[in-house]
């Protein structure tokens, strides 16, 4: 410390005590050493080590830079940053992939035994959408709801990801090697004990060869195949009448009159996609070609709602009806059939069952008048003698003309009979079955309880289930081995005589799964390490090269042929012209006729439209697809007629106990208009006990009412009983059940011209009768926007629409629509952008049903647009009503003001809300269409007319330097519609086919009087009823 400023000290230099401040005695007495020391800043020696060059060379700037950087690092390290996984760019562009452009691969759908050809749309290597393969001669570019929703199965987070071994009720993951070793050893040690292979229908010739190889390696192996719902009765009846083969394919498109007896040929029976197309070709306003459909059934089906005349009788009465009909036709038309049924009289029959004899007379005269141009078809569930009688009646009417000769269905392996399964169970119980292998099937759930399969399975030393996900069967088998999904597998299929279908994978197996053929092949090889990725591909190719290719007489080399076939997805073959011999007139044994007057209730067990036999129960989209008639979701129920409900004091949602013999099941009641009295109709596929988060505990397992002892048929049980339990159970439907006899709401859809209908006769007389009914165009007070360029519009032909709902699922997949769950459907918050409205008119006993697909109408003067306070919904110059999700705050005003109520609001983040964020699983994100925003909580959404497809088409057109045309774009619903009821295109382009429908004389807008100017035209439905009735 320098003292130089201290004037007091410097003035007094002697050694006398200083009067001022002092810090030590030395200082006080002015010790010169101290004074000297004070003169220096630093003490001696302190600065010896100081040298600027030896100092750290971190500058002040650098110090601050480092300080800042470490603060920033410390700050960011503590934030919520999480590694979102690897994002790897294509450093080397894969040959086939252009980022942002989809690739399409032809393959085959294995969701059901129909084996439709499909085109799988992939983006950057992930499949995102399924459409029908347009080259496939059977499904012709269309695919059903199950096929559409199959994409969800691929990405299902609950697929088993590795082999599972069941050790005392818990599953442990094991390696394929260990599993294979144990299984191969067990198979080898089977000795004389049977190895049972249980599977659904086999549609693949190569799979069949694998099984033959398996049988060769393990000679005691025996194949069993089954389908819960099948056409075996129909086919066996056919064989009794015509000797061999299967029931033929029909020319639905050429039939003038169709009589359906308990048959749902537009729904669950046969090839629905093909039948709908052919059927709707015959309901064409363009060619003015209309078939007339009579339905005589006990429950209202998709076929029933599309009929022109419908009568309901209990299934027990069908035989009597066919005989009475044959007799009447014989009498009136002088047509003798091989059935001599003189004891049966149609008028008496009509009286006995209280049927409208006028309709029956029409039916008889139509059948007589259209000899050779009519089809009588009996439902798969009817007993054999009805089928035989129908075959003979068709034969007598000359309807063999309408049996297709170009192709017929092929069943590679016949289904096992119930006796064979009974024998299997006996052997299993006796301990003479060493191994049971369930190949991609769920017999514990499907088989009737009284077969005792589940108990017997416990006695088998080794039971294996090859499956995609855990199910009721895996719960009681030793091994659950994970299978590849349809889209991860190779394969082939032959279900028609004139075509092979090929299946190729479009994605590498996501999990440690193998395809079922590979698993069997590695067991055949007897070596646990024989599996390779290409094991089955090599086998498949070999089989084709050696066994199939030579039969095709192809002129190109096999390699070229193979690549071409994979590209096309199909191989067409020439099938020999099928001829139908003479009917065996003795096939109908009258002596065996036993007409029982139905007593008590008749229980009918039916296949569910969307879940099938339960195979798709875990698929949320299909669970949420409303039933085409009842509009119920997420449940099955006992459908009863209104009269039956009244008689027993039941109402909707009452829980009743249905019992057949000693089997009982509690079910909720749903009053279904159009059901025959005293008939209980229950659909199968629900009540799964071990089917993951989505399906477990949803609905009721009606299979527990099945019996292995056939009643009227395996699906129809007489003498069922119902008892009221007093409890209730809510069934979630997407449409309210409106009271029929409430004059306030009756026929509102007709009064409000929501549904406009006419008859064919009326139309032929006055083609513009709909237009004459319509409101006059109101003059506009403002200048409407001119829309000079392309303006998008849609036309929906209500004559063709069957109401199946395939389009709804297609829309779900295309537009990333979440599953909301039963609780939200009960609250009327389903998210489907497209819905199929169903209206009843007439009596609840036998209603007339009208169907109308309803989606955003893209109104020119959209009422939703002007009420949005934040301009989140606007109109585009090409006529689209657009939603800007980012801008939407969710006032819901637009939805309130929408007269069609087609807007959908995200009341929750439904992906998070449904089943504890099941849909938030990262793997499901792979499924989303990358071109469509995934909407979150609080925003409004609605049909966009597939604007992403329009944008893509526009980009392509720009790229090719041509104008965008209406026909460049198809919407997802249009692509899916198997009856081609939806047309989409440019309203202003007069050259297009769409223009014809947009301006059709039968076209009308829903709620035209509101003058909102919709861009969706509905073509009024024409009912082909007799002109005398008009």
């Amino acid at each position: 410390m320098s003292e130089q400023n201290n004037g007091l000290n410097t003035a007094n230099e002697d050694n006398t005590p200083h009067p001022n401040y002092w810090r030590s005695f030395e200082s006080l007495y002015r010790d010169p050493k101290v004074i000297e020391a004070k003169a220096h800043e630093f003490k001696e020696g302190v600065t010896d080590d100081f040298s600027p060059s030896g100092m750290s060379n971190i500058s002040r700037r650098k110090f601050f830079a480092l300080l800042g950087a470490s603060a920033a690092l410390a700050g960011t390290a503590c934030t919520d940053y999480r590694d979102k996984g690897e994002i790897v760019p294509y450093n080397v562009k894969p040959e086939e992939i252009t980022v942002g452009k989809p690739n399409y691969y032809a393959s085959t759908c294995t969701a059901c035994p129909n084996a439709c050809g499909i085109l799988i749309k992939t983006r950057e290597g992930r499949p995102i959408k399924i459409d029908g393969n347009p080259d496939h001669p059977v499904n012709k570019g269309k695919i059903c709801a199950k096929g559409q929703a199959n994409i969800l199965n691929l990405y299902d987070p609950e697929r088993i990801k590795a082999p599972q071994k069941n050790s005392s009720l818990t599953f442990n993951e094991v390696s394929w090697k260990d599993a294979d070793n144990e299984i191969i050893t067990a198979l080898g040690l089977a000795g004389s004990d049977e190895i049972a292979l249980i599977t659904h229908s086999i549609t693949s010739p190569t799979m069949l060869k694998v099984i033959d190889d398996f049988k060769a390696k393990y000679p005691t192996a025996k194949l069993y195949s089954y389908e819960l719902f099948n056409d075996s009765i129909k086919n066996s009846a056919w064989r009794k009448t015509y000797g061999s083969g299967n029931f033929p394919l029909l020319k639905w498109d050429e039939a003038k009159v169709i009589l359906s007896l308990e048959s749902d040929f537009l729904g669950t029976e046969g090839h629905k996609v093909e039948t709908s197309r052919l059927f709707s070709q015959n309901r064409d306003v363009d060619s003015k070609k209309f078939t007339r459909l009579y339905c005589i059934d006990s429950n209202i089906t998709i076929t029933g709602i599309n009929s022109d005349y419908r009568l309901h009788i209990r299934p027990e009465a069908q035989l009597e009806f066919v005989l009475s009909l044959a007799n009447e036709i014989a009498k009136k038309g002088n047509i003798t059939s091989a059935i001599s049924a003189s004891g049966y009289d149609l008028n008496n029959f009509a009286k006995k069952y209280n049927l409208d004899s006028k309709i029956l007379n029409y039916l008889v005269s139509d059948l007589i008048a259209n000899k050779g141009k009519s089809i009588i078809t009996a439902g798969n569930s009817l007993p054999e003698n009805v089928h035989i009688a129908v075959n003979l009646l068709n034969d007598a009417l000359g309807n063999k003309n309408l049996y297709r000769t170009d192709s017929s269905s092929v069943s590679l392996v016949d289904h096992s009979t119930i006796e064979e399964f009974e024998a299997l169970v006996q052997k299993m119980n006796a301990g003479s079955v060493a191994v049971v292998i369930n190949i991609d099937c769920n017999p514990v759930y499907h088989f009737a309880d009284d077969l005792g399969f589940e108990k017997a399975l416990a006695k088998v030393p080794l039971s294996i289930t090859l499956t995609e996900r855990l199910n009721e069967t895996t719960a009681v088998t030793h091994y659950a081995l994970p299978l590849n999904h349809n889209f991860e597998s190779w394969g082939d299929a032959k279900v028609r005589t004139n075509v092979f279908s090929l299946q190729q994978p479009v994605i590498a197996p996501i999990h440690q799964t193998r395809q079922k053929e590979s698993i069997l092949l590695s067991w055949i090889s007897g070596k646990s390490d024989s599996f390779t990725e290409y094991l089955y591909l090599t086998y498949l190719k070999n089989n084709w090269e050696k066994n199939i290719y030579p039969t095709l007489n192809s002129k190109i080399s096999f390699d070229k042929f193979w690549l071409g076939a994979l590209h096309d997805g199909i191989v067409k073959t020439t099938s020999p012209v099928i001829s139908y011999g003479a009917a065996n007139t003795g096939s109908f044994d009258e002596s065996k006729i036993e007409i029982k007057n139905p007593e008590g209730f008749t229980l009918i067990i039916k296949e569910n439209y969307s879940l099938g036999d339960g195979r798709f129960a875990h698929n949320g989209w299909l669970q949420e697809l409303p039933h085409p008639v009842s509009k119920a979701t997420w449940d099955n129920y006992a459908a009863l007629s209104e009269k039956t409900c009244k008689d027993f004091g039941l109402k909707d949602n009452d829980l009743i106990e249905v019992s057949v013999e000693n089997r009982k099941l509690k079910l909720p009641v749903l009053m279904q208009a159009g059901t025959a009295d005293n008939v209980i109709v229950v659909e199968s596929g629900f009540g799964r006990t071990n089917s993951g988060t989505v399906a477990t505990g949803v609905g009721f397992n009606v299979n527990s009412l099945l019996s292995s002892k056939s009643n009227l048929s395996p699906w129809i049980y007489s003498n069922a009983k119902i008892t009221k339990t007093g409890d209730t159970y809510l069934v979630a439907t997407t449409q309210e059940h409106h009271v029929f006899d409430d004059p306030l709401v009756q026929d509102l859809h007709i009064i409000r011209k929501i549904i406009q209908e006419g008859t064919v006769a009326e139309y032929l007389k006055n083609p513009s009768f709909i237009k004459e009914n319509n409101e006059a165009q109101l003059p506009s007070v403002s200048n409407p926007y001119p829309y000079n360029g392309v303006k998008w519009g849609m036309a929906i032909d209500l004559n063709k629409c069957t109401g199946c709902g395939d389009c709804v699922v297609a829309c779900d997949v295309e537009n990333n629509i979440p599953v909301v769950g039963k609780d939200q459907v009960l609250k009327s918050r389903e998210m489907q952008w497209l819905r199929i409205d169903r209206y009843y008119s007439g009596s609840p006993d036998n209603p007339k049903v009208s169907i109308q697909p309803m989606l955003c109408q893209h109104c020119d003067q959209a009422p939703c647009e002007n009420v949005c306070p934040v301009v989140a919904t606007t109109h585009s110059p090409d006529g689209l009503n657009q939603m800007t999700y980012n801008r939407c705050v969710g006032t819901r005003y637009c939805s309130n003001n929408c007269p069609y109520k087609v807007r959908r609001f995200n009341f929750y983040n439904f992906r998070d809300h449904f089943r504890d964020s099941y849909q938030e699983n990262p793997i499901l994100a792979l499924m989303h269409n990358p071109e469509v925003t995934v909407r979150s909580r609080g925003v409004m959404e609605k049909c966009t007319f597939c604007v992403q497809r329009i944008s893509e088409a526009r980009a392509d057109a720009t790229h090719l330097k041509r104008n965008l045309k209406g026909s460049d774009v198809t919407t997802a619903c249009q692509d899916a519609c198997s009856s081609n009821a939806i047309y989409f295109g440019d309203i202003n382009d007069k050259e297009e086919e769409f223009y014809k429908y947009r301006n059709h004389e039968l076209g009308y807008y829903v709620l035209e009087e509101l003058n909102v100017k919709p861009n969706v035209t509905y073509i009024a439905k024409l009912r082909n009823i007799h002109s005398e009735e008009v």
Partner: protein
Amino acid sequence: MNIDYSQETPLIAGRLDLAQIEELIAQPMDTKPDRKYYIALSISVTALLIGAVSLGLTFYYGIGLWGNNQPVGWAFEIVNFVFWVGIGHAGTLISAILFLLRQKWRTGIARFAEAMTIFAVMCAGIFPAIHTGRPWMDGYLLPYPNQHGLWVNFTSPLLWDVFAVTTYFTVSLVFWYVGLIPDFGSMRDRTTSKIKKTIYSIFSLGWRHSNRHWSHYEKAYMLLAGFATPLVLSVHTIVSFDFAVSIIPGWHTTIFPPYFVAGAIFSGFAMVVTVLIFVRKIFDLQNIITIDHLEKMNKVILSTGMMVGYAYSMEFFIAWYSGVQAESFLFLSRAFGPYAWAYWIMVSCNVLIPQLFWFRKIRRSIPLMLIIVIFVNVGMWFERFVITVTSLNRDFLPSSWAYFTPTMYDIGLLIGSFGFFFTLVILFTKSLPVVSISEVKAVADGAQPTHHGGAYHE
């Protein structure tokens, strides 16, 4: 009955002198709150907390917690909004319109009614903000310049609503505050607490009761009354546009603006009467808020109730007369459809029960009028429910019809809004003069110079 119509009836009963008036009104602020006050406060705060929890959960999970569904996009949240805006109508009507019409009896109740207006509009204001699906994006509803070039949609009535309600709130608040200034001055002069003195001093804006202050004050008050008067009519007119501008049957009606305004005054007066009955009793203000006051309010309730009843019948008539099927159906469905119970609650509470006010005895009977005004409050809530929900639940396409059932969160928010309102009311009674001291003094006997020297008139 012998009533002398040549003389005005005294507005203040009990021959209170000016000091007594001030003493009486300032009493609640000078004393510590008692046990009853805390009980009342804890009840209302509990209700408020129920609302806060419901709101918190709604923010967390989404408005899916409410009962709203696909056709019924608006339900309790909008019903509550319209209800509270309606309640907020009495105050400004009493203080502005009656002021301009020189209705001196308004002085006893104007302050309280205005306060209730402000609190009711605060309650109402919550709902448009929370009813959105993404309340964190509510800023989009405000027209602010931004780099996106995005602007709000001025054709949407919902936006007009935002402006109407905020304007109304601002003007009502300013009007109320201006009216309070002389009283703040009085309170400042009375109080001995230093803290209170500071607060009152700030809010009294240097009020010194000078002649010049009074003359400025009265001019300002008159101008603000003029400002506020059209707002009384405009707010609910614009709220009614939310419905009337749409195309949904039951909403798309030209009768809505006057119908809504009448209904708002009706419900507002009923709510003011409900609260005043308690306030005059608890704070011993029977001499200032006299039975005559209540009777006059009951007359307004009777007349507006009949206007509302007229609107109900006219809606039916027009629905039939117009020949619009969807509309005539909707009105039949209201009366006889699934929500008939709500409709008949509304009709009986709003039209039938207020008819009892034709009887003078009932108009002047505290217990009976309390029952009737509570019915009116209930009825007016149901009126909004009927308009909002029953129109949406059965509109054009029968396929999309669905019944709305409220959830516990809907009810929680409704309770919460009442909790919020009454908490504010209760806090208000202890912190500000519930009756305007200066105005009441002005209408007290002898306060005005008269030709007979201000003597008590016989």
